[in-house]
């Protein structure tokens, strides 16, 4: 019994590790693909070279990040079977086709058109090239659509029945499965998060180069665009996050109570706990710093609305409270820090100090990775908050795992940690190195990066390919 539990725990750790690692890259790709679309659109509209240069600068980075997303994604597509075979067997008939659609639709759009993006604008003409950029952006979005539909269905399952083998099967329409109750909120919240993640990464890179050279036109442009995004999108994201929270309260109240750290019911209006150390054993929060009634205001939009507590639910239904409590706070804190930076950017802009304020630039560099941290924290909140279930309320995590011994899972976990750290560590180092070189006029097309045909990652040949005869270092803007 104890050993079995151990193998399940290791499998959970393995999934958390590989999915977090993987998710960094798509989160960046979704936002960056749209940013590239905007840059190219602006370039075609205004004819200003700075946009073309920025496009090429970020395209190279996009290509590497995208490739790493694909490589790490392959691992995930097999991990359901290796570590979660019971879940695959039981839930496969419902989630399998959705994931199948994710593979065929997204791959079709992305692989087909990424090649065109990388072949260079001189070969295919401006219109087709811009169309390709738009299709790649759409492809990343379609990918997010399907995979978040699967995730949402696991959180708020609808439109299913059970067959005699204990499998979930579709009852009636796929529409009910795909557009399950939490899906619209999760989709908007996650895609917006991806946009913000990219905005802060771009802003951080821009600020880094402004600190070194205030007159760099490319750096100024990207920093300015990123600051607009931060100012305009962060409030929207906070609003969407609130709606998503209300939706979660409706369908997964236990998760929300764990996020809030509310062990005790609050018939007179719940407080908002700013800080504390949740203690699941004692079912209380130590060193609590709380604002009375505010919790009910946030969750019920009414100061005196009653809220249940975790104690109203059986203990074996509780997720790991401390993890959810903390990851949620990290995510929210970063959200408000993003808002603050956006507002500081606006003030600096009004005072004509957007490109001069070194303090602002330092803060932006510091906030460069913030989006990634927030995305992972949010992911942990929702996934750990779903525990002890894989399919919420219906299938327990302990009943989802493969019949494996702990040593096997432990060995594979160690292998993944070592390999990912080495390989993706190198990859991230290369990405940072690319970001550390300043954008400059006459940014070459990505010729020294691989040119792939049907390609997920743009492939590198030593020199340009048949479709890029100039190649090398003298791309034209």
């Amino acid at each position, binding site marked *: 019994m104890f050993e079995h539990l151990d193998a399940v725990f290791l499998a959970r750790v393995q999934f958390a590790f590989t999915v977090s690692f993987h998710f960094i890259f798509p989160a960046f790709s979704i936002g960056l693909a749209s940013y590239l679309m905007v840059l190219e659109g602006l370039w075609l509209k205004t004819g200003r070279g700075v946009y073309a240069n920025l496009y090429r600068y970020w395209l190279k980075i996009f290509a*590497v990040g995208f*490739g790493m997303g694909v*490589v790490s*994604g*392959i*691992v995930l*597509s*097999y991990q359901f*079977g*290796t570590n979660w*075979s*019971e879940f*695959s*067997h039981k839930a*496969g*008939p*419902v989630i*399998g086709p959705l*994931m*199948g659609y*994710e*593979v*065929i*639709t997204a*791959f*079709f759009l992305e*692989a*087909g058109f990424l*090649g065109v993006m990388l072949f260079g604008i001189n070969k295919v003409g401006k219109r087709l090239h811009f169309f390709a950029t738009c299709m790649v952006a759409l492809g990343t979005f379609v990918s997010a659509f399907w995979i978040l539909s699967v995730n949402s269905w696991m959180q708020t399952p609808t439109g299913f029945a059970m067959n005699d083998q204990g*499998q979930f*099967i*579709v009852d009636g329409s796929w529409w009910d499965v795909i557009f399950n109750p939490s899906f619209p909120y999760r989709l908007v919240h996650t895609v917006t998060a991806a946009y913000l993640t990219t905005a802060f990464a771009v802003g951080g890179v821009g600020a880094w180069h402004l600190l070194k050279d205030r007159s760099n036109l490319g750096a100024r442009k990207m920093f300015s665009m990123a600051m607009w995004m931060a100012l305009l999108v962060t409030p929207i994201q906070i609003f969407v996050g609130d709606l998503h929270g209300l939706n979660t309260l409706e369908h997964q109240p236990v998760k929300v109570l764990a996020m809030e750290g509310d062990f005790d019911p609050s018939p007179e209006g719940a407080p908002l706990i700013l800080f504390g150390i949740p203690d699941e054993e004692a079912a209380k929060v130590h060193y609590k710093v709380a604002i009375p009634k505010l919790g009910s205001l946030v969750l019920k939009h009414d100061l005196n609305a009653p809220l249940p507590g975790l104690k109203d639910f059986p203990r074996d239904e509780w997720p790991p409270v401390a993890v959810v409590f903390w990851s949620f706070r990290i995510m929210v804190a970063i959200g408000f820090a993003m808002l603050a930076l956006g507002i500081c950017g606006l003030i600096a802009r009004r005072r004509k100090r957007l490109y001069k304020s070194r303090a602002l630039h330092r803060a932006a560099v510091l906030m460069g990775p913030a989006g990634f941290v927030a995305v992972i924290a949010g992911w942990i909140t929702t996934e750990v908050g779903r525990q002890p279930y894989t399919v919420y309320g219906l299938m327990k995590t302990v009943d989802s795992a*493969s*019949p*494996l011994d702990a040593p*096997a899972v432990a060995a*594979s976990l160690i*292998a993944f940690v070592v*390999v*990912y750290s080495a*390989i993706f560590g*190198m*990859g991230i180092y*290369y990405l940072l190195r690319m970001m550390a070189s300043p954008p400059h006029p006459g940014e070459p097309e990505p010729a*020294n990066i*691989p*040119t*792939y*045909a*049907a*390609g*997920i*990652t743009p*492939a*590198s*040949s*030593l020199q340009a*390919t*048949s*479709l890029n005869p100039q190649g090398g270092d003298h791309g034209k803007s």
Partner: protein
Amino acid sequence: MESLDLPLIWAGLICFAIFAYVVLDGFDLGVGILSPVLEPGTERDQAINSIAPFWDGNETWLVMGGGGLLAVFPLAYAIILPATYPLMIAMLLGLVFRGAAFEFRWRDPAHQPLWDLIITVGSTVAALAQGITIGAILQGIKVENNAYAGGWLDWLSPFSVLTGVAVVIGYALLGATWLIRKTEGGCHRHAHRLAYWLAIATVLALVAVSAATPFLKDDYWRRWFEMPQVLWTAQVPLLVAICTGVLFWSLKQGRELLPFLMALALFLLGFIGLCISIFPNMIPPSVTLWEAAAPRDSQLFLLVGAVFIIPVILGYTGWAYWVFRGKVGTEGYH
């Protein structure tokens, strides 16, 4: 619509995806396996450049195979993957290593020998794991109550190691014949010499696996040698003999494309032989493909998309090969 045997259609589609994967990724894994015997410098660069535009697109078929299996044959997916757990993990890690090394090989010339070594190790491990998996499925998987019921090393046997080695040799042959077609000069001559030896080794491996398979189970024996179906099954070894003859003849003649096509034909015949042995099971000895299939709704829903999109993917894959047709040259494609 009601009369369609969907599991059979899907089994065909998944066989197609797996075979597409073997054909496409087989030659680039093969080039990876062969790279240590190629001279560092132009020879090896030429070889690796010749597969640079293709390898990642090829790998996608593996995701398709896995995704399709989960959606349409969830029971098979849920049994085969835990049953071959260490193999699957090794294959995935091998592919991760290989993909990353491809990326870094050009960006980090200082450590090129190291990246080349990683490409070789990653390719070999992935190929070996795939081959052993085939052997493990052929020799049967222990299933109780719709779940895998064996230990985590059940897949390891002399037979599965034989199929593993056979696949590594076969991929290397695909790689060598691909290089004959795609490269010039020293690399081309070297690949030509290698192809001879690899052709001999591949045929020997194929014969060894074919000879060993009927001894695994009475069922296989009956399937291959009972009248009247022996009249059908006998065509497979006959075609293998013909393809082998053409392969050696084409190498002797110095033909460039024919050896590659013949190597593919040998793989196709081996694959057909595998299907003959297993059908109608999905997991020998006890789970048929109808038992492993998902409910009809799930199969139909994904089939609509697959029928529409797979031809498109084939179309632009073909287009990509057309764009990068001809010799790779020493500087990449021209």
